């Protein structure tokens, strides 16, 4: 099997699962329990938090554990909307956000909030000038993703941060789910960023775990009320085995991060070089520094994306239409539409998303499969 769908999810690392198992078997107390056994779990939780904070270069009390990226996005956005509703009801985001952001924003619109969805250019990047122009006296949040999940474009978070430097009260949130281990820490956690959302299973941790960074001094309302865990901001008994496993996964993914990115970049390049000159191919992901190293989105004109996905699957190669979350619905890629891609071409888009464990040999095997698939579609491709 060749797995090229790492933006959908990644395989949990074996040593990470080993941590999960060991903690589940031996440190399974409730961190809130008063006794020693609970205390031990609490200490492991604390040390996991410290390790994640150290890797990110932030403070321990700025890390809050969640169930994943969707919860993190929902929490920061709705939590801001609730906490700052007396200051304003206007939020700014982009047209290319993940549904966890877009649909949360739409829910807030139904509750009387106003949302500005900023456009992107044809390479899938929002402009800081547009952010500046959209700011109003009642703006309470700007939410921009770090790396777009559908085409891999990297958003100008530093420039947006510079714009927002003049508006210290606006919460600046970054959905960093696709940005972990991609050599983008300075951008993702630039000094103006107040919140960032992370998801464990995108970097080889178990499903159902994630965390947000919340800058010290910033406040959002909790969505989960209850027993007071996570500084009373996210109640629910802590998933200690998964959190410890995630801390380990983050350590592994950020070790030799640069050479891992080079590996992804090299694999991606072999595929791009092979397909880019084919007459019916459109590539949406650039090779320049504005694109993440692990995502390659392209279309074969005239062939539906899902048909391409299944054709590769026949050859034991796993890719996706533009995002796993929307791929089972009859829905065109929001990002590609925002990039003003013709709708017909957008329906033909597929995404190859890599991981540092992918090899050059796999890229070459992909290329051979591509050749036969491409030739097979000869009759239906739009000439």
């Amino acid at each position, binding site marked *: 099997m060749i797995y090229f769908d790492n933006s959908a999810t990644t395989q949990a690392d074996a040593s990470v699962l080993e941590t999960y198992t060991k*903690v589940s078997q031996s440190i399974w107390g409730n961190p809130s329990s008063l006794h020693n056994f609970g205390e031990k779990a609490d*200490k492991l939780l604390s040390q996991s938090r410290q390790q994640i904070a150290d890797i990110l270069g932030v403070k321990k009390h700025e890390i809050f554990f969640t169930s994943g990226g969707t919860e993190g996005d929902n929490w920061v956005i709705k939590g801001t909307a609730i906490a700052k509703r007396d200051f304003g009801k206007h939020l700014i985001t982009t047209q290319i956000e993940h549904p966890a952001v877009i649909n949360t924003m739409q829910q807030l619109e139904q509750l009387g909030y106003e949302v500005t969805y900023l456009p992107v250019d044809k390479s899938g990047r929002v402009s800081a000038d547009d952010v500046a122009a959209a700011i109003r006296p009642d703006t309470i949040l700007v939410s921009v993703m770090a790396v777009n999940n559908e085409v891999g474009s990297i958003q100008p978070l530093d420039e947006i941060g510079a714009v927002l430097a003049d508006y210290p009260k606006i919460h600046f949130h970054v959905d960093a789910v696709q940005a972990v281990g991609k050599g983008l820490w300075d951008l993702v956690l630039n000094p103006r960023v107040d919140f960032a959302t992370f998801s464990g299973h995108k970097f080889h941790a178990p499903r159902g775990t994630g965390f947000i960074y919340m800058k010290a001094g910033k406040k959002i309302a909790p969505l989960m009320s209850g027993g007071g865990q996570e500084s009373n901001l996210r109640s629910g008994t802590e998933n200690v085995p998964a959190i410890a496993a995630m801390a380990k996964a983050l350590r592994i993914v950020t070790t030799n991060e640069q050479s891992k990115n080079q590996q992804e970049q090299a694999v991606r390049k072999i595929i791009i070089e092979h397909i880019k000159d084919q007459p019916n191919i459109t590539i949406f992901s650039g090779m320049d520094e504005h694109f993440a190293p692990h995502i390659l989105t392209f279309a074969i004109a005239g062939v539906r994306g899902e048909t391409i996905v299944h054709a590769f699957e026949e050859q034991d190669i796993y890719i996706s239409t533009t995002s796993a979350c929307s791929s089972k619905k009859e829905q065109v890629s929001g990002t590609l539409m925002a990039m003003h891609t013709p709708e017909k071409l957008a329906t033909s888009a597929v995404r190859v998303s890599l991981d540092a464990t992918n090899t050059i040999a796999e890229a070459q095997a992909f290329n051979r499969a591509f050749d036969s698939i491409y030739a097979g579609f000869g009759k239906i491709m739009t000439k």
Partner: protein
Amino acid sequence: MEYTEIMVRYGELSTKGKNIKDFINRLGSNTMRALHDFPEVHVYPKRDRMHVVLNGTDPEPIMKRLKLIFGIQTFSPVVQLRKEIDAVYAAAIEMMQEQVKPGMTFKVSTKRSDKEFSMDTNAINREVGSAVYEAFPDLTVDVKNPDIEILVDVRQNGIFISCETIKGAGGFPVGTAGKGMMMLSGGIDSPVAAYLGMKRGVDMEMIHFFSPPYTTEQALAKSKQLTEVLSQSVGAIKFIQIPFTEIQETIKEKVPEGYLMTVQRRLMLRLSVAMAEKRGGMAIFNGEALGQVASQTMESMMAINDVTTMPVIRPVVSMDKTEIIKVAEEIGTFDLSIMPFEDCCTIFAPPSPKTRPNLEKARQFEELIDVEGLMERALAATKIVTIKPGENYLNPDEDIFAELL
């Protein structure tokens, strides 16, 4: 810029007349102890300054430690150059590069112990100054109160230059004032009091009362961890844990409620004094601040202090709580202190202790218990451990966890 040594300036001890030699030697040995895990580093305590020669060791961790050592007023990372004035220009400019911000002022101060050197002090000041000024036209000279002082020291074995002066912890080298016993509860005040005492040169030993099962292992671990933080300034601190359960239970049983606290405190002080006498301590230190709680009124101090003539020193006695917290945050004890574990001062605390206890009554009520026997058993079961920087008491599984993570 590769620094070759750290030059340390002495603080108040420069004014200490003929004791100066003891002070310098003590600071030297304290510094060596604090840097013992850097075998390449050599410490040379000289009469006017101390030289910490790096021999290739990274200066950052060394400077981090030096910042904590009492008796150091300021220190500067220094580069040793060959004895050519051009090298001084180049090094000065390179060093300034890392520091200059628009609108800053500077001056050059030269010391020349090698009188053979071709340029005199004034000429070096002038020429280095103008070389720097040429490289950074935004700078202005201010000889009285400069933002940056470039120090040039012309010695026999080279020219030493630095332009960064880092503030040390000040105070006196620990040990120069003799030994004291600190009554460390684990709250916010007592670690600050210990720190302030140590800053005046006191070789402090920590006394901690614990009352299992009324107080937890975690409360004991917390006090040890606080001691670990304080040990960073001195290399090691003795931690004396005195069991207090039997005493507390007996007092609770025999003494009227209003005097529980006063009699308990009298026993704590008696035990501390006994320990001091045994170990060569000359004073008891505690974290009492006047008026904070019931035990800390002057009447209460009198009723407790009655048990000894040994000096009881209260370094934070006149500080506001906010001032104490500020110091606690600076020295890194605050976050530990506020961890919510019961200590033996809070258990059996009566709902309304006497804020103005009567000395005579305190003495009478104390006679209801067998002071001597209780003290003997407590002292016999006392444990003494040495606590060193980097030890982890709150999370003893840290290394096991690190394997998992």
